[in-house]
């Protein structure tokens, strides 16, 4: 098996773990962390194709991952602010109890 395929399988496993966590857990913070894991899995794919791809001369993969990390950081900040706002309204971060749109 080529190293590229092994890297892609690792990333696929990380994506599965993140997806299962985001779907199983009822806590908003853990759902957000599952989404972060899935974003990290996508970044692993970019690095794997940059390192083992057929034309490794450019920096495109690394630049793509850098922007991915920046966007994921922004997403984490906004998501956790939403979690705190949710907690202020209903004193709980359980998603099953977040059934009202009006505060």
């Amino acid at each position, binding site marked *: 098996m*080529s190293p*590229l*395929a*092994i*890297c892609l*399988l*690792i990333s*696929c*496993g*990380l*994506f*599965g*773990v*993140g*997806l*299962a*966590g*985001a*779907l*199983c*857990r*009822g806590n908003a*913070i*853990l759902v957000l*962390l*599952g989404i972060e*894991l899935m974003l*990290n899995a996508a970044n692993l794919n970019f*690095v*794997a194709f*940059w*390192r083992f*791809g*057929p034309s*490794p001369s*450019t*920096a495109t993969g*690394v*630049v793509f*991952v*850098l*922007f991915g*990390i*920046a966007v994921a*950081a*922004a997403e*984490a*900040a*906004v998501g*956790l*602010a939403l*979690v*705190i*706002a949710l907690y*202020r*309204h209903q*004193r*709980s*971060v359980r998603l*099953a109890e977040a059934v009202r749109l009006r505060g």
Partner: protein
Amino acid sequence: MIPVLAAIAVLLLGAAAVAMARRNLIHSALWLVLAWGGVAAFYLWAGAEFLAFAQVLVYVGAVSMVVLFAVLLTRPRPGAGEAPAAAGPGRAIAGLAVGALVAAVIARAVLATPFSPAAEAAPALTTRRLGVELMGAHAGALLVAGVILTVALLGAVVLAAPESGPGRDDPA
């Protein structure tokens, strides 16, 4: 080379799985720090040192701190007692099944794809070259990323700030 990758994979996937399975949120956050460190180790293994340091700075350093703050700020009320268990094991089983199914489909697609043989030498990408690329060909995208970060931080402050005003009192 491959044994190192296997060790990194075990660390990465094991820490992520334990983090998603723990009941204690703080334990989850700390295990996730380990998983993100594993991702940084993968970047180092692949020869992308700059990305590894960016991953350590952004995830292991910053995002984990923000997550820990959020966990500590949103503790359940002491009077509320133990939160009721999630809606039975059905939801957990369904989530696990969906995750495993998606992972299996992707893995099958990866295994069925004939990849062209890899280049033997790692691509030589110095940090200087990366900086030139970022400020040259990708300068516009860099500016947009800066704007996105600024707007996201302003939005986070606005969202998390307490709503003051005459019409609102604390719902607690």
